[in-house]
């Protein structure tokens, strides 16, 4: 093998390692990309929400929808499904949740907004979806709060916003065991 060959092999090995690393770098890159474009519709906690509370703007429709991820037994629903709000004003809403099982469970809610280009105009001061885990005792009920404001700059063509929340069982184990054993406790996944 001549020098040129050895150099080519070295370069190619670096390329392979580089691309393997790149595949993992895609994970944070995807988050950054989604954050900029609003691609996956996830609204994060806003630090400058107060600046959006200005003059009362136009009226828009706001719709809350809830989903239970497969196998999640809780009752989970918005207190009020459809409402009219004014942009530029602070708005509070609640979701009702109840642990219907006879064991302590931790849940996590994931939010999404449609249309996704409304995402950057929704400022959430408080949301149960920011919590890493919502723990409920057997049979316990809770009202989960949302405090938000829709910015006056919201594009004119958007007249309705849908806020969707999906609740997940944080402790669910990956079902590589086919018969899901519900009494089996596992460490919560990160």
């Amino acid at each position: 093998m001549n020098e040129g060959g050895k150099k080519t092999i070295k370069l190619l090995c670096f390329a392979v390692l580089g691309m393997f690393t790149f595949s993992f770098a895609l994970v944070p890159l995807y988050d950054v990309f989604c954050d900029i474009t609003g691609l996956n519709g996830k609204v994060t906690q806003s630090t400058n929400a107060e600046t959006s509370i200005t003059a009362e703007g136009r009226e828009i429709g706001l719709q809350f929808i809830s989903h239970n991820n497969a196998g999640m037994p809780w009752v989970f629903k918005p207190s009020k499904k459809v409402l009219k709000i004014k942009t530029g004003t602070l708005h509070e809403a609640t979701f009702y949740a109840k642990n219907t099982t006879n064991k302590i469970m931790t849940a996590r809610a994931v939010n999404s907004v449609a249309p996704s280009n409304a995402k950057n105009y929704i400022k959430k001061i408080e949301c149960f979806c920011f919590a890493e885990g919502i723990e409920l005792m057997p049979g316990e009920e809770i009202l989960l709060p949302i405090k938000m404001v829709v910015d006056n700059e919201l594009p004119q063509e958007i007249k309705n916003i849908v806020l969707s929340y999906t609740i997940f069982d944080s402790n669910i184990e990956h079902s590589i065991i086919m018969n899901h054993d519900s009494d089996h406790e596992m460490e919560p996944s990160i």
Partner: protein
Amino acid sequence: MSAVIESHDHEHHHGPAKGITRWFYTTNHKDIGTLYLWFSFAMFLIGGAMAMVIRAELFQPGMQIVEPEFYNQMLTLHGLIMVFGAVMPAFVGLANWLVPMMVGAPDMALPRMNNLSFWILPFAFTVLLSSLFMEGGAPNFGWTFYAPLSTTYAPPSVTFFIFSVHIMGASSIMGSINVIVTIMNMRAPGMTLMKMPLFVWSWLITAYLLIAVMPVLAGAVTMMLMDIHFGTSFFDAAGGGDPVLFQHIFWFFGHPEVYIMILPAFGITSHIIETFSRKQLFGHASMVWAMTSIAILSFVVWAHHMFTVGMPLAAELFFMWATMLIAVPTGVKVFNWVTTMFKGSITYETPMLFSIAFVVLFTIGGFSGLMLAITPADFQYHDTYFVVAHFHYVLVPGAIFSIMAAVYFWIPKWTGNMYDERLGKLHFWLSFIGVNVTFFPQHWIGLAGMPRRVPDYALQFADWNMVSSVGAFLFGASQILFLFIVIKTVMGGKKATPEVWEGARGLEWTVESPAPYHTFTTPPKVTQ
């Protein structure tokens, strides 16, 4: 004295080792090429048998032969085996046989790694196939293994699947490094890059694509492994991950992957069409640029596989236009092949028949690809049989026809014997009719709304599904004939001349048929 020199000479230029260990220990590019080709043929027949199970179940509406769970396993393994076991190893086998001979090199640059990269493959596929006999069955989530189907809801055997994909990836990466180093460093004097035969060019580009995307596939399955066993949440929304991320990573690998399966076919077709048209290929340089631009564009079109997951309008427009742009270099290639045939003195031997069928049928697959690229239309076509028809048109009469054409074209060089032309033509016509009867009606049932990946379907799709199944059985059976023809040619037949085909161009036709165990130990001088 001369006898002494001769015996020394004989020892130096030894032939193949004796016995079965020849195949285990071999570092000879021709032996390894043969191993790859036989392995891929075996996988083609196994994957094909699975396709027969699928088509038998779809022969009539209702569930008759297999359970839906088993149907899903057949579907998944058929895809995985055909992509990673049949098409890719066949092209690597052809590269092993042909690249060193075409560039005038004595062997591949890294012969021992070459042996390793082949011999880990049977292990990978044994692991994958053994999952059929495990509790919970084989992988059942489709060859695209979307999370969470392949993580949260996967059968326990998914871990074996992950390791087999890791091994396949390692094999492909080693194979690609070998091809690139051979091409970049071992060309005969006088063979500049632009003088390189197109098959070599197509493989150089393919190898770079493999180097770029196989590690990404390895990364994707590693993330799955960590999600399943180590409590991470790359693709699990409950833990802050995102299943859509999986699709982005998968298709960032997957789209270049589909070009990995077609670029070497472009190279093969170029050689065969120019030979049987008895003309120099039209537009050698434009072929090189077309392949290069297809390869580069393949990195920026991945999201056209997932228009329906939800994307900003701007992204959908970008991926639509970028996808359609690929039709330009592909059109250049088709134009060049047709122009090469134009006013040529064409004869229609089996390789030429397969290659002409490749040009026509691959173009049909390309056009249905253009239809699928139109974002709003894709919302209608997505996950229907139209997609199945599209990718089978580019892979079966595309990639697989080109592999068959290559086998008929170069088998006289490999074995020293001519194949039976009459049987070869019969094989071609049975395959050609079989392929079209199988896949053409799938366009219609797809447009009519039949979803893909279903073991049962609504009654209005019954007729064309039956036709499609009949075509599939014909195509499947005609591959037994192919196996027979190949064995017959290996066993004997009319002796081939070194040139084999009248007017064949390229260094591989300057050595005897069958090609000696060692060729070009002293590099040839390339003039033209």
